[in-house]
């Protein structure tokens, strides 16, 4: 699936360390992000947010004229967009505070460029869906907006549970999603005891998306652990 449209998103980067700011900037621009703006303190960040209307903000917690949590609250007043904290404050309390205030993710320094990029892309993918998002699989396509599968020019509808399952798998495309996480995605916060129902739903999804459901290539089982959705071109 083409994710190039995500690289056009406007990103606001706030950190008081110039060297770190330069480095993150270079990581993002080298990956292909074209609209990244930087600020070194709360004041600059608010000015920059007013001017550039960011679609994602990456904030440090400790800033010279305030803290990232307060800055997030102010930025949220100006518009609704995802916030990612990138900070040296690794205490659980800091993380809970960040998530409690509505942060979308929290990365504790030090971090690897790949980790930062993976998390940024995951947030953007969650927050900004393509106009006509057709997800290409080996033998079919998923149209999440219409909740249907297109296979051999045939449109097969998805039930609500199948849609939820495929969404959870697609959000982690190429990665294993545990049986428990899938049950939780479909049946809520107390998902135990639904393993057999899950297997039945997976079987039905395979009948819809696979050419040969007995030998699946797009929705594969990882024995005892979970399932993985393999998306073409990803």
């Amino acid at each position, binding site marked *: 699936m083409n994710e190039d449209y995500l690289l056009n998103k406007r990103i606001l980067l706030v950190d008081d*360390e110039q*060297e*770190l700011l330069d*480095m*993150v900037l*270079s*990581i993002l621009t*080298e990956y292909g992000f074209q609209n990244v703006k930087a600020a070194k303190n709360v004041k600059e960040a608010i000015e920059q947010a007013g001017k550039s209307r960011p679609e994602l903000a990456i904030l440090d917690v400790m800033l010279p004229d305030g803290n990232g949590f307060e800055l997030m609250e102010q930025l949220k007043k100006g518009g609704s967009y995802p916030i990612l904290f990138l900070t*040296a*404050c*690794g*205490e*659980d309390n800091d993380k809970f505070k960040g998530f409690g205030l509505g942060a979308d993710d929290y990365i*504790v*320094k*030090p*971090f*690897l*460029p*790949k980790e930062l990029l993976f998390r940024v892309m995951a947030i953007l993918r969650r927050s900004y869906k393509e106009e006509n998002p057709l997800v290409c699989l080996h033998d079919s396509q998923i149209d999440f907006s219409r909740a249907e599968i297109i296979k051999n020019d045939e449109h097969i509808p998805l039930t609500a549970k199948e849609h939820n399952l495929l969404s959870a798998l697609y959000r*982690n495309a190429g*990665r*294993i*999603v*545990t*049986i*428990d*996480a899938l049950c939780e995605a479909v049946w809520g916060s107390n998902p*135990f*005891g639904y*393993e057999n129902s899950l297997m039945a739903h997976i079987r039905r999804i395979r009948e819809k998306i696979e050419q040969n459901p007995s030998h699946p290539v797009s929705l594969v089982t*990882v*024995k*005892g*652990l*979970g399932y993985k959705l393999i998306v073409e071109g990803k």
Partner: protein
Amino acid sequence: MKSIPKLIRRFVGIMMLSTILLIILNITFFAIVFVRNASTLSPWDMADNAAAALQLKDGGYSISDDLMTKLKEENTWAFLIDNDTRQVVWRTDNLPSNIPMQYTLSDIAKLTRGYIDGYPAFTGEAKNGLLVLGFPKDRFWKHTRASWDYNFIANLPKNTIIILAINIVLIFLIYVAVNSKLLRSIRPIINGIQNLSDGSPVCIKEKGVFSELAEKINKTSGILQMQAGQLRKKETARANWIAGVSHDIRTPLSMIMGYAGQLEDSKNLSEIERKKAAVIVKQSSRMKDLINGLNLATKLEYNMQPLKVKQENAISITRQVIVDFMNTNIDDKFLIEWKTADALSACYINADKDLLKRAISNLIQNSINHNENGCVIYVSVDDCNNTCKICIEDNGIGASDKQIDILNNTPHYLICDTSTTEQRHGLGLLIVKQIIKGHNGEILIGHSEYGGFKTVLIIPK
């Protein structure tokens, strides 16, 4: 305080035992005295013997020489009153001079019951008269008006037992009352000592018989509180120092990791240069893990990271850890196999989910770190009655018996006050041990049946 009833029971037991022993002792003593007294001939028997021995021979009375000698040895004298004339018809030589020679009936009744002129007298029936035996004045005391109501005699055993029982009950009540008072005054002292052992501050009222002891306990509590406060302060300072250093090191390390990561993927660099960058990334990651580990280990050691315990499914947690490893694209040399029984879908335990994930993750990472040539890591969860067993093992190089013994029994240098230069094992295993200890669980380290290393985490449900 469980020991108070035990103490009372012991007190009462000792009291009962001592009372019974006292009674037995008294009875024995009484019996000995009685038997000893009974062994010497009673004066009544002596009088009877003398009367029987008196013989009328040739118109005069006589007594055998042996008996006479015995009477003299006892300093005793005797005379015989004739039944018809009531006159003394025979007497021993040592009869005091003031003893009358003629007796009326009332005189005989008096002397039989009591004394003759102050001498205790005892009578025995002779053939024709009454033999009177007189003893020195200080030899016997006679009860001149002895008479017992028959009912009194009949009820004597019963009354004795009742009096004895009343005595025992009375002693018991007095004992309990006295001991209760003592225990009441001891109770604050006992509570104080118990609180001391719990580390709680103690303040006992300094009055009563134990006021001095109370004062000492209060003083000890003050000293302990002060020492505990100082220790806490030191521990907090140490943990804060580690937290501060690890915080300050994160930003520079981010830049090292970030730029090295970029260089590692740079197409403008040669293969050798990219490999060098990869080494920097790898070593920086190790430093990152070390900082995180050190921080967590310190917090767990000083109880600065309270456990957020909830009911969790151990299978779900373990599965998530394995999947996280698989999703991070670990080297193909390492395979993780899920060996939990298919039928087991849940094993509920009270656990801190994040910390338990960390413990399992550390063990899987250990298998990866210590098997450079790759290995298969087998992970299983088992539901055993009241515990949940999480087993992480591999078919790698394993460890010798000596190494396993060290891992099981030697404390990590971070929490050991001796030999800080010798590195026993990494922080990873220390953290696992601390986490499992926090869950009141147990950790078993040993050889795997697959040929490598095995760790079993046993967590109570």
